[in-house]
């Protein structure tokens, strides 16, 4: 260490230290994060992924409010044991409309990335109300209030507008709606139109009757609707089993 560098310069000059610290962190951050925005295969090109319907999105809000993510991840990793248990490994494309994503790394309970369609609505309702009535060894808490709590839909437009701000293609104008029709088809585009979101939410809840009780829309309706769509958007039978190998 013969060059004329002195610790003292940095250690006695807090302004210089702040600049150098920021420089060091920026280099690390840029090297790790920037390429993900530049590399064209970060988000795989795959058919079927769409933003959540208003009811599913409310279910997702409840999922986060209740802290489900503290015990459940939503990412099937590309390992044989995970594939056998949960199904096809998760694609980045599948969580492109999630804000924030629910990948997680903490699994006290099983991964939920592909739980959609795996169990009946009735099972989900019973299991959420009293997990041990369905799975004896479960350590999951009971969530009985989901069934009695009426779903608050008064602010659904605002919630979707907030997501629109961060890039989820919910539509406000006719032009945005038409763009969604072109991307997702008319059935999906209709569900993504913010001015109709309340009507759409009520329709889906009444038609699906996820909680088995037709008397009103409960938080259970929304949460089960959300759980039942998880991991079901991409039809993997359309792709060969190594279709996504080249993306990595």
């Amino acid at each position, binding site marked *: 260490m013969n060059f004329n560098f*002195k610790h*003292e310069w940095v250690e006695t000059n807090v302004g210089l230290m702040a600049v150098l610290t920021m420089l060091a962190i920026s280099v690390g951050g840029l090297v790790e994060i*920037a390429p993900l925005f*530049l*590399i064209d295969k970060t988000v795989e090109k795959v058919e079927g992924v769409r933003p959540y319907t208003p009811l599913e999105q409310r279910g997702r809000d409840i999922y986060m409010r209740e802290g489900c993510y503290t015990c459940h991840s939503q990412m099937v990793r*590309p390992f*044989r044991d995970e*594939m056998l248990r949960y199904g096809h490994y998760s694609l980045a494309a599948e969580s492109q409309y999630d804000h924030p994503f629910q990948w997680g790394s903490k699994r006290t309970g099983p991964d939920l990335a592909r739980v959609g369609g795996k*169990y009946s609505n009735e*099972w989900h309702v019973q299991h959420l109300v009293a997990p041990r009535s369905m799975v004896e060894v479960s350590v999951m808490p009971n969530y009985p209030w989901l069934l009695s709590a009426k779903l608050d839909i008064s602010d659904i437009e605002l919630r979707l507008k907030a997501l629109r701000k961060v890039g989820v293609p919910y539509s406000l104008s006719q032009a945005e709606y038409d763009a969604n029709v072109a991307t997702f088809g008319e059935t999906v585009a209709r569900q993504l139109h913010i001015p109709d979101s309340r009507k759409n939410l009520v329709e889906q809840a009444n038609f699906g009757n996820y909680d088995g009780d037709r008397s009103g829309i409960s938080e259970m309706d929304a949460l089960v609707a959300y759980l039942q769509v998880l991991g079901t958007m991409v039809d993997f039978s359309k792709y060969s089993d190594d279709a996504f190998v080249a993306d990595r």
Partner: protein
Amino acid sequence: MSDHKPSAHSAQTTGHAWDGDLQEYNNPLPAWWVWTFYATVVFSIVYWIIYPAWPIGNTWTRGVKTVTYVNSEGETKTHGWNTRALLMADLNKAAAAQKPYFDKIASMPYDEIARDPEMSGFILSAGRAIFSDNCAPCHQSGGQGVLSFFPNLTDDDWLYGGGYDRIHETIVQGRRGYMPAFKEVLADAQIDQLANYVASVSGIAHDAKLAALGDQLFHGNAAGCYICHGDDAKGRQDVGAPNLTDAVWLWATVPSAPTPEGKVAAIRSVVAEGLNRGVMPAWGGRLTPEQIKVLTVYVHELGGGT
């Protein structure tokens, strides 16, 4: 241990004094540390060459290591190292190990698989794994089900049939239970009569006079119960209508009702309210045909019939 403290003469300090006389040594790093550091630098360069590492524009350095696998179309492919290719190779390896079993399973009829001692061992372990992951949350780990929610698979009472082909069909396409709510078409008194009749065929204490009237309703076209449950009330497996004569209950909470009146009331409630439950998801798209065949034999072993 030697004394590592440098003498006052050789000590090099950082040259700064804190609080008047507090100084800091500026000793060279130990050689082992420096060489370990150089070794990690060399290691990282080797690592960059072997594995995917550096981003360049819209792509990245792929590394020289490759993975070779066979995909479902039978094409052998060699791809730069990544975890998805590695998974393919891993699946290939496992498939090769299980191939003798699955080939046999694909070619053998169900009853032969069940009779073959070597195969039934495989069915027991592979089938249990598939069952635990997918079926046990509803039907429970031993297949005993949950009263008034999910049917018991270990008894000899089958809603949709306990033969191999019917079990296979149930797994592949799923099921959905439905019975109309008879309170919409029948008077309260008539529903009482029907409940008493159903109690009578399954050996539960009942009012014989009401049951006789219920008998006529059951077999008449106003209620039309016989259409699904059969003239003998033994059910029809092609539509999933349960046998009402065997004292096995799924929907009506008869076993947990303490009194005969309670049991009749439990039956009454199902007649009045109907059912739109008993949904079993379809597994055809989730499990492979081989897995479903293994599962079919496994479930049949639990309590299947013909």
